[in-house]
């Protein structure tokens, strides 16, 4: 049973340019699915569509988003907001802008518990302390009273992870959560997300462009090109034998520690041309 099921989701810019082309993907309860693709492929757009935070210049033009069996797009806006708030959460990309600079950490974690779930303040605060301990923050009491600028980037990302898990959502969308961090911190954060996901048995949609990360964290993955899912498979099968020519080239382009002298392999032009033709053919078929 999939917890999140996206069916034929189409998103366009207001001027009609398609950004997502009938995207379908499922995330089973407790599963980690990676969403990979190059910059501009529409990875983040999928997460934003699910969470209802699409940018203004963008319109949802078709498809269904089923969260826990309920079609989100059919709900009235207020109910939809509450459902998403209670069942899903976001780990954003940039920890430096994802916390409100003029509010203390504590209330920023407890907001959702109080607003959406109707908890009492003290209860919510106790829970927040617990969560901060869970993400290995020392002296959580002190951190709760701090402002974001008083903390380092890695700390802030830990806080955002704690905050995402606060309301025990059954789906978390992580939008390149390690991209803005330096490499040593990246590894810790990745491990932490994995650890939290396993402990809380949360479904995780992990958006990334780093195939190395994919192999460490996820069970299944979708490869996206120009807003179209071109391969949907489980991780082992993908790394053993990717089916799509573009996926093969993408995998070959990943630099290898085992072969540091080997030159980097960009995706060949003829393969790009082939995928572009495929996308164009798909568009033509849609327009008929």
């Amino acid at each position, binding site marked *: 049973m999939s917890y999140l099921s996206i069916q034929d989701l189409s998103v366009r810019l207001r001027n009609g340019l398609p950004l997502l082309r009938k995207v379908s993907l499922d995330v089973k309860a407790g599963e980690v699915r990676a969403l990979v693709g190059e910059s501009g492929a529409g990875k983040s757009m999928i997460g934003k569509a699910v969470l*209802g935070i699409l940018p203004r210049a963008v319109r949802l033009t078709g498809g269904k988003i089923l969260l826990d069996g309920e079609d989100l797009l059919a709900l009235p806006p207020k109910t939809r*907001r509450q459902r998403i*708030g209670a069942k899903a959460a*976001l780990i954003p990309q940039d920890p430096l802008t*994802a916390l409100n*600079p003029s*509010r203390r950490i504590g209330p920023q974690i407890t907001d959702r518990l109080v607003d959406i779930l109707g908890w009492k303040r003290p209860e919510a605060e106790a829970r927040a302390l617990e969560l901060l301990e869970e993400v290995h923050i020392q002296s959580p009491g002190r951190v709760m009273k701090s402002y974001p600028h*008083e*903390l380092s980037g890695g700390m802030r990302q830990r806080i*955002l992870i704690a905050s995402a898990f606060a309301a025990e959502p059954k789906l978390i969308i992580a939008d390149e959560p390690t991209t803005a961090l330096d490499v040593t911190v990246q590894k810790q954060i990745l491990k932490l997300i994995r650890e939290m996901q396993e402990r809380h048995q949360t479904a995780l949609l992990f958006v990334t462009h780093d195939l190395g990360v994919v192999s460490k964290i996820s069970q299944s993955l979708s490869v996206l090109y120009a807003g179209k899912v071109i391969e949907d498979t489980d991780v082992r099968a993908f790394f053993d034998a990717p089916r799509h020519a573009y996926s093969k080239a993408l995998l070959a382009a990943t630099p290898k520690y085992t072969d540091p002298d080997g030159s980097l392999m960009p995706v060949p032009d003829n393969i790009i041309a082939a995928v572009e033709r495929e996308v164009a053919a798909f568009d033509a078929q849609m327009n008929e």
Partner: protein
Amino acid sequence: MRDARGDIRQLPGLRLWLSGGWLLLLVLAAIFAPMLSPHDPLEQDLFAARLPPFWEQGADPAYLLGTDSLGRDLLSRMLYGARLALTVALVAGTLTCLVGATLGLIAGYYRGWADLVISRLVDIWMAFPPVLFAILLIAVLGTGLTSIIIAIVVIDWTRFSRVVRAEAMSQGAMDYVASAQVAGRSRLGIALAEILPNVLPTIVALLTLEMGIAVIVEAILSFVNLSISTDEPTWGGMIAEGRTSIYQAWWVLVFPLFALFLTVLSFSQLGEGLKEYFDPVLR
């Protein structure tokens, strides 16, 4: 793992003390003007006309800063003039801020048609020459304190709208706003609880700046004799009177001008200082 950034604390700084000090002095002068003034500000004494300030030859110690061409005591007139200047600064500044900041926040955060309407209105508004606009408004509304305040609000709200809109837009694009949206916060809740606190340091800086501008606008209107009744002592009116006798009695022009200058400067410096003090990131 606590970042050392949190342990840096700065003192509010000399700028805040100096500007705040002058303004405090002015507020006290305005409140206690009747007690502090050595003379009635309206009392004329033609035998004591154009007396120089106390350090010049021929000064009368009873008139500390000298007298104008009608023999009125300059110090007393300046103290009473501070009353009007400060009333206009506080009331007009605050009202302008409320109107302009609210519209700016709506335009910057809600965007869409509201932004379209407000922004075009601001564009049209700013195309009017402000001083002429003020004179025109006073001509329509009639002179008096209320008219001055209305004129300042009507002319200057655009300043707040522009800046607050831009700031609200850039804050609205931050991830923490998206996070709050995912967490189920309403649009109004986000605008008030998430965006407003981050725009507040800018609003405070603008507010004090606006108070300075209000003082100038009032002085300009008094200068062209469009403020309140001509008898009432105002800094702008004094400057206008001083202008006519600048070669015989420079002090009539210079003292009120200096008070005006210091006041406007203090307001703008106070704003800068407060902005640093309020902004958690700059702090």
